């Protein structure tokens, strides 16, 4: 699982349906399945990401796998050397799957295709490239909220707006691929400095959130986290200006359709890309995303590891 493009539409629906079943496990008193007993999953995180790491950890544990967390950040070896060496070391200890978060685009692809390791590799975010399980959980959340009978369904006819720093966002890239594969129309929105024209979203590009809400009338709005270093690099002038033009607030929220929802991959900058009223409103499905994250990751681990399907994917 390296890219959202690794899955064709029927497989995506299969994973989402499986995740739906898995979420039932999370409702039980004993939240555990024996499926991956004896398998070892390594969370190899070269960047801090407590949420994603915990989500994968919980998913693996609910399937009874052994989990090792390896935070490589700050290690003395240089980044590149430690990716190969660390992955090989962990595999030598018996890892069946490596969940990789790395700051360099393509690192998961490289780990899986360079012959360094034989384990299944799951991309938990590679630089500015992709974050496929995030796209799966976003799709699951959108389907749950907007489709009456979600099981077996795609997202055809749904309109999703992604707002913020598209250029540097792995979440945006994976969502553009996955939501398109599911039949949704996707538009992007943000300052022109952060919205690459070449990604050519099917729903078009908007440089103003107001215009996007009025003209595109999205069913779901995915707000991306804004990194303050983008401001320092002159991608936009100030946080105030960003918030004014591209931030989600109660006024904009009220102009969305009645059934429309707001998503955010977290962690949020409250008051910057999203205000508190929007984040805590009934339209906000941010906590559903967190719940679905565990279910989706259970489904992905199950898909890759159960029944000895441990080949690279």
């Amino acid at each position: 699982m390296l890219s959202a493009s690794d899955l064709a539409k029927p497989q995506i629906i299969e994973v989402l349906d499986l995740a739906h079943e898995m979420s039932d496990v999370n409702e039980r008193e004993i939240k555990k399945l024996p499926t991956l007993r004896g398998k070892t999953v390594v969370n190899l995180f070269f960047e801090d990401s407590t949420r994603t790491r915990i989500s994968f950890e919980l998913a693996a544990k609910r399937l009874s796998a052994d989990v090792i967390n390896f935070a490589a950040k700050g290690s003395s070896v240089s980044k590149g050397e430690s990716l190969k060496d660390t992955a090989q070391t962990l595999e030598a200890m018996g890892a069946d799957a490596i969940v990789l978060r790395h700051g360099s685009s393509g690192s998961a692809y490289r780990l899986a295709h360079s012959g360094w390791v034989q384990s299944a590799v799951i991309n938990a975010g590679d630089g500015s490239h992709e974050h496929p399980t995030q796209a799966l959980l976003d799709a699951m959340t959108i389907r749950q909220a907007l489709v009456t009978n979600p099981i077996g369904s795609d997202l055809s006819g749904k309109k999703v707006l992604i707002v913020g720093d598209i250029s540097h966002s792995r979440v945006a890239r994976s969502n553009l691929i996955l939501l398109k594969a599911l039949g949704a129309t996707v538009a992007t929105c943000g300052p022109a400095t952060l919205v690459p024209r070449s990604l050519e979203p099917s729903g078009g590009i908007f440089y103003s959130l107001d215009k996007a809400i009025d003209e595109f009338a999205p069913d779901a709005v995915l707000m991306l986290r804004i990194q303050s270093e983008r401001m320092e690099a002159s991608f936009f002038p100030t946080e105030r200006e960003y918030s004014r033009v591209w931030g989600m607030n109660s006024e904009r929220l009220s102009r969305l359709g009645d059934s429309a929802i707001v998503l955010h991959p977290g962690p949020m900058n409250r008051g910057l890309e999203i205000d508190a009223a929007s984040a805590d409103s009934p339209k906000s499905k941010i906590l559903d995303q967190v719940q679905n994250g565990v279910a989706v990751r259970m489904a992905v681990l199950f898909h890759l590891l159960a029944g000895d399907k441990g080949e690279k994917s």
Partner: protein
Amino acid sequence: MNFILENALDTKGRSVEVVIEGGLIASRKSKDIDHELVDCSGLHVLPGFVDLHTHLREPGFENSETIRTGSMSAAAGGYTAVHAMANTFPVADTAGVVEQVLRIGKQVGLVHVQPIGAVTVGLAGEQLAELGAMHDSAARVRIFSDDGNCVHDPLLMRRALEYVKGFDGIVAQHAQDPRLTKNAQMNEGAISSRLGLAGWPALAEESIIARDIMLTELTASRLHVCHVSTRRSVELIREAKSKGIQVTAEVTAHHLLLTEDLAESYDPVYKVNPPLRKADDVMALREALVDGTIDVIATDHAPHPKESKDTDWASAAFGMIGLEFAYTVAQQVLIDSGASNLERLAEVMSTAPARISGLDRQGKYLLPGSPANLTLVNLGQAWVGEAKTHSKSSNNPYQGLDFKGRVVHTIFDGEFTLKDQTIRGTNTDV
């Protein structure tokens, strides 16, 4: 040794007998001395190749390449002269370092190693290096370059261009605006957006070339543009030449053959600076090579040890090796394509770089009395690129590619450095 190369064909396709006596081309064989006869049936004789852009890595980075291994790779690629770039450690920014490089090159003796001097102290872009001292040294440095870095300060670039006029020097610019290419990883465009790799816009090269052309016109000096990689760069140089501005340009073999889509593999063997560009740029570079806008094919041979490439893309070093592949790429682009001829190939691989650098022992071809620096090639030999070459490094993007045409013999100052595709002295002293 004295040789007679029998049954070779020259660049015009005429059968020639080449007599080499005492290291020089002779107009006819002397009766009173013995000659070794070398049958060159089916081979074309060309002037020995001259590379204007080679990273030999010594001193300082001998884990990548040494002057010896780089010279071996050069001889195997048909070169009789290479220009050693200044980004060593210590940097070739003093007479002492350039003389050391020259001396080791002579000791190895496989190829003329002509040092290039740094423009600025430590390649830092702040203060002019002692250009005059390097020129006056035994190395007779004529080309100065901060290659790897751009001389981006316009005032410093102006000063350098003016200063080298005192001894007919040339500034060879690595054209890259550092601000427009911060953290850049590959050509900027749809593919870089999709791959999430920071883009290296063509404009970052073109804007520096445009500025440097104007500075060269202003100072009436001489500019050489390293590794031109975009269509617009070609247009700028074409226009400058039409105005009589003294600018010359080189294109690398890899920019004539490979394109940006190779980055989709995330294999850093394709990571190079300037980056591989679009097919349209490759077309423009090929046209410019044929019409004379681009003067020279250079290698930008840039060896790196395995650990610098056996990583994720962003952590990997920029650069690829090329000395043993430039000829076959040149043949593919100029001859096999039907776009040009062997005379033009000899010009861009030897005569023009020798002239730009002022190397009077190189690029003279079959002129009687001149040093015998010759390369013999088999236009029909089919072969497949192997990862391992004579270079110490294997960051080789040509591995596995099918080629036609290969260097068979290299003769440097009247002696075979490569004979029947075997390097002289590999068994004894390496």
